[in-house]
């Protein structure tokens, strides 16, 4: 009997009246590793952020293990893109991993020995234990990613949402991360990861979701990861903005929108 880890219903998100996600209806069973692929601007990160409540949708709803997100927070772990933080912040690897437990500790109380041990265990699983006291501004890309994963691991969640976990990491780190993910799956957890490398899809994932503003296809890789679906997903390879923005020359608007800035 398979429970549904994630149920998404009519999820639609727009940014500045440009749709980024349109009428997404997916059901993801538990205990699988699912990848999300699609062109730039297709809404992959936005999809994850909408589930977590970081982005407010225009329409639709999501349920995690049958419940709304807020009541099941403790069962979800989030691994954001590593570019989303400032690595010059004066803190150590161990400290970052312990941050994952702040939700459990609650307000005001301090993390104690128990939390420290949990963090060290998580770091060990990712081969980072000897770096636990290293300052984070001295880490390589792969080490940064592993720190983030340890932070997610320590939360002992059931659903893991990862945004480009393999982006910009070395081959060894990629192996370590994949082993961890497989390990989690064997324990019955569900992992959903935004991915960018089409060559490794079949090797890494059980299910694949192909997204280009609309959900083009979702299901087991063997059935769904076909040439036809890929063509449909990547056909309008430019950011969808291009089709929906009025086709006049807008010097300031276009260049900065494409860079994602606001001026």
């Amino acid at each position: 009997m398979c429970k549904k880890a994630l149920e998404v219903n009519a999820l639609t998100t727009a940014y500045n009246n440009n749709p980024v996600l349109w009428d997404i209806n997916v059901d993801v069973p538990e205990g699988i590793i699912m990848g999300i692929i699609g062109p730039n601007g297709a809404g992959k990160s936005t999809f994850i952020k909408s589930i977590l409540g970081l982005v407010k949708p225009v329409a639709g709803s999501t349920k995690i293990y049958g419940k709304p997100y807020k009541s099941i927070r403790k069962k979800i772990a989030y691994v954001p893109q590593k570019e989303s933080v400032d690595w010059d912040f004066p803190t150590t690897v161990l400290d970052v991993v312990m941050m994952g437990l702040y939700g459990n500790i609650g307000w005001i109380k301090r993390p104690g020995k128990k939390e420290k041990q949990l963090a060290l265990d998580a770091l060990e699983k990712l081969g980072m234990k000897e770096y636990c006291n290293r300052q984070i501004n001295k880490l390589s890309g792969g080490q940064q990613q592993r720190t983030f994963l340890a932070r997610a691991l320590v939360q002992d969640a059931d659903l893991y949402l990862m945004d480009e976990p393999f982006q910009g990491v070395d081959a060894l780190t990629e192996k370590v991360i994949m082993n961890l993910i497989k390990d989690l799956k064997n324990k019955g957890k569900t992992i959903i990861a935004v991915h960018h490398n089409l060559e490794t899809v079949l090797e890494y994932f059980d299910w694949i979701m192909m997204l280009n503003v609309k959900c083009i296809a979702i299901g087991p890789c063997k059935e769904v990861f076909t040439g036809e679906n890929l063509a449909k997903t990547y056909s309008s390879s430019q950011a969808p903005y291009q089709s929906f923005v009025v086709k006049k020359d807008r010097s300031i608007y276009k260049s900065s929108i494409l860079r994602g800035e606001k001026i």
Partner: protein
Amino acid sequence: MIEYLLSIFQDHTLRTVLLGSGILGITSGILGSFALLRKQSLLGDAISHSALPGIAIAFLITKSSSPIILLSGALIAGWISSICMMSIVRFTKIKYDGALGIILSVFFGLGLVMLSVVQKIPDSRQAGLNKFLFGQAATLLKEDITTMGILSGIALIITFVFWKEFKLLIFNPEFGDSIGLPMKKIDILLTCLIVVAIVVGLQTVGVVLMSAMLIAPASASRQWTNRLEIMIILAGFLGAMSSVTGTLISSKTSNMPTGPIIVLVSFLIFTLSLFFAPKRGIINKLFCTYKNNLKITQNILLTYIYHLCNSKDSVGLTELMKKNPCNSSKKLIKILKQMENSNLLQEHSDKWKLTLKGVKKVRKLQLEGDFYD
């Protein structure tokens, strides 16, 4: 009305002051646009404060409070401070905001020290210095205007000459490097011009408020257009309008310092632009977003009913609730009724089905892969 305008032109002092304010408005509007687009809006704040030690030291060295001397001091200090700022960002992990804060407070602190040295000197000419702290447009003299005019004129001519290079600097400096343009030197040139704009305005609005003149007219004009040329010219115009209006108001009211009034007028213009500009303005945006969100939800529901009706004749409310993009049944019913009014749906004993018009619309949506009609 005519008499009022005539009286202004005949009042010699007022004429001088208005001219000065106008020059200030145009220069700060135009150069402020560049600063805004480079995300360097608060640069004005830092440089205005940094000018203080320059002014004080210039006075101490030359014992003269002639505006040219003081302005030169301000220029040199402003220039040094912007170099310091760039060095901090370039050589350390400190980000731009931190560098601004450091330069602003340290230079100004140094200025205070110099000022206290000046105040010990029993010399009445130091009264001119106070103008620079808070600005007093009403005390602008013809020489001041001439200096301001010349400096601004030079700045604007340089801007015009280097227009293409500045444009490249803002949007794509790496490309400029790759085609062989000396982007670093152009960067320094632009920063120098901004320093000039600030120093020109110091006498009118004073140190604290000068930053507002670099930000408000440019931000206001930004709301009206996406084209660089128009934005800059409009900013100059709005800047001049704020300064002139502010000066007029302050001259007619007693006990009213000019600087704050000019700033408030420019802020008012900004707020009006923010709300009422077409396309980008808030009111327009809210309206469009509301309309669009409504359309989106309608289209989703319509498509859903279309698919369901393939196997059934019509769809009941409970079916629709399963899909419910609205997260509330009241809203769902409202939207269904709205679509009924537009003749896209028909209702019969609590069940809904598409009309011919509705079917046509769904087919059109699917065909064009379009999200909106």
